[in-house]
């Protein structure tokens, strides 16, 4: 399990990334996908997920459609046109951040980094 404080800032791009891979997803599906892909290391709680999804909807990044499945309403999320660009930007940002982290965490990073330059 990864510490909550580490996951916090990365949820947004993770969700956007998943939405750009699939046409549409619903809340529970997102939590399960994250769990599955990360091999159970990252657990996205529904308490963290829904506020983010709603924020994305209000910002116009994602749109929703409602469908009745198994006698209950299911809300599907998909990226809007502008959302697709936003998703790319946010994912690129995260990748950049992860690369930076990787450099920071290497032993003797300062030396190698200087030589490579």
């Amino acid at each position, binding site marked *: 399990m990864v510490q909550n404080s580490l996951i916090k800032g990365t949820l947004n791009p993770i969700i956007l990334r998943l939405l750009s891979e699939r046409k549409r997803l619903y809340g529970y599906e997102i939590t399960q996908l994250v769990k599955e892909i990360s091999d159970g290391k990252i657990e996205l709680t529904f308490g963290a997920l829904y*506020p983010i999804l709603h924020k994305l909807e209000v910002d116009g990044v994602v749109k929703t459609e409602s469908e009745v499945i198994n006698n209950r309403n299911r809300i599907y999320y998909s990226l809007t046109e502008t959302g697709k660009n936003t998703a790319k930007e946010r994912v690129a940002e995260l990748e950049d951040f992860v690369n930076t982290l990787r450099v920071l965490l290497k032993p003797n990073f300062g030396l190698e980094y200087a030589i490579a330059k």
Partner: protein
Amino acid sequence: MQSLNNKQIELIISDVEEARITFSHLADELIDHICCEVENEMNFGKNFDEAYDIIKQQTGSRVLQKIQENTHYLIDINYRRMKMTMKITGNISLAILGMATVMKLFHWPFSNILLMLGFAVLCLIFFPSAIYANYKEVKIKSSKILHLSVLIGGILFMVGVLFKVLHLFGAAFFLFSGWMILLFIFLPILLYVKLNESTSMRDKSIVMVGIIGLIIFELSTMFKVFHYKGAAMLMIVGSILLVTIFLPMFTYSKFKEIGKITGQYIYLLITAMFFILLSILLALNVSISVLDVFSNEEINSVKITSYLDQKNNKLYEDFRSKTDSVKVKYEHQVFAIQNRAEMASKLLDSIEIVLVMKSDNVDESTAKNHLKDINTIAGKVTTDNSIMIGERNNGLANLLKQKLSRFKEDLRTATASNQELSNNIENLINTSDVFLDNENQTWEQFMFQDKPTICSITVLKDIEKRVKMVESQTIQYINTLKK
């Protein structure tokens, strides 16, 4: 792949509805999410009840509400600002009011300004932002009137309390209108909304008893403050409803619902305890003990006065039996003193009657009857400055001061040869101004301003006693003089 039947879904829906999730399509999502989780557990061979028990532990009402709150917080910038303002100004106003109270207790300067500042922050910033935040969280029908009425009623009420504490004009108006709005608009609507919300008969009756008990209890506090009849009866009924019926019922249902006592419940219980028990204790204790002090003091004064009356009669007789030469020399002084003392007594008596007539709204003979036992005076805590102080100090207190001054002049002439006695008289009948709270107060203000009727009566009786005392001492002194 297991899927839930309609009945099972309905159970989950009703549980989620209890959390009152109103934001956008959040409720649908939470229901769907919980259903999926339960189905997932059932896929591992559990039956519905077992599966839902496990999931329910992570999806209680409080958790769901917290999700809605977080969503609001993330999306609504106004809501975020209001929450922030609420937190900051709540602390600030509490700190200011706490400081002001301490300063007021010690009679330090600027306490009133600080008190007003604290109330201003409380009324104008904290209270509205708290209500706005709540309004955003609970979106229900007729919630506009509900929130508006508690906002206006609450502000009026708080201003009333402030004015009452500072003895400003209009306190009664603000208190009364605030109370009216809270009691007859806010609480009934709250009752209506809560009744609509609760599903079972048990919940309905709990809400009914709780809110009606609260209305009766608040009504009794209002009656008590304004001295209407029947306050005690209302208070007994209200507190019985709240303490012996509502609280146990509420506890029982909460206990059944959650299976354990939550922090929130304990918080509610403590608040209720402070609110109900302390206000009852305060109302009863203060009024009884304070009244006892007044009535004891008054009874003593009356006793001493009547004793001195007899003694003085005896002294006047003694004087009359003196030799003619002594009588001729002091007769006019003795006569003047007797005359002035009698006038002062009469004036004091009539002031008392006027005060009781005004405060109890009765005729003269009833007022005289009430004065025989001051516990029967109804206007125990009312203050009315119009009689004693009046506008620009032209009230009865000033007249009394003038009469006492003239009386004192006569005494001074008669006792000029005895400095000790003269000083003693000056001390007993002292009508000079007083320096208090860093400001000069006239004798009239010091003795009678903002004093309840019962207190003024006690003060007047005390003055009468003092008049008799100095009269007695002076005549006694004259009797010892020789030609």
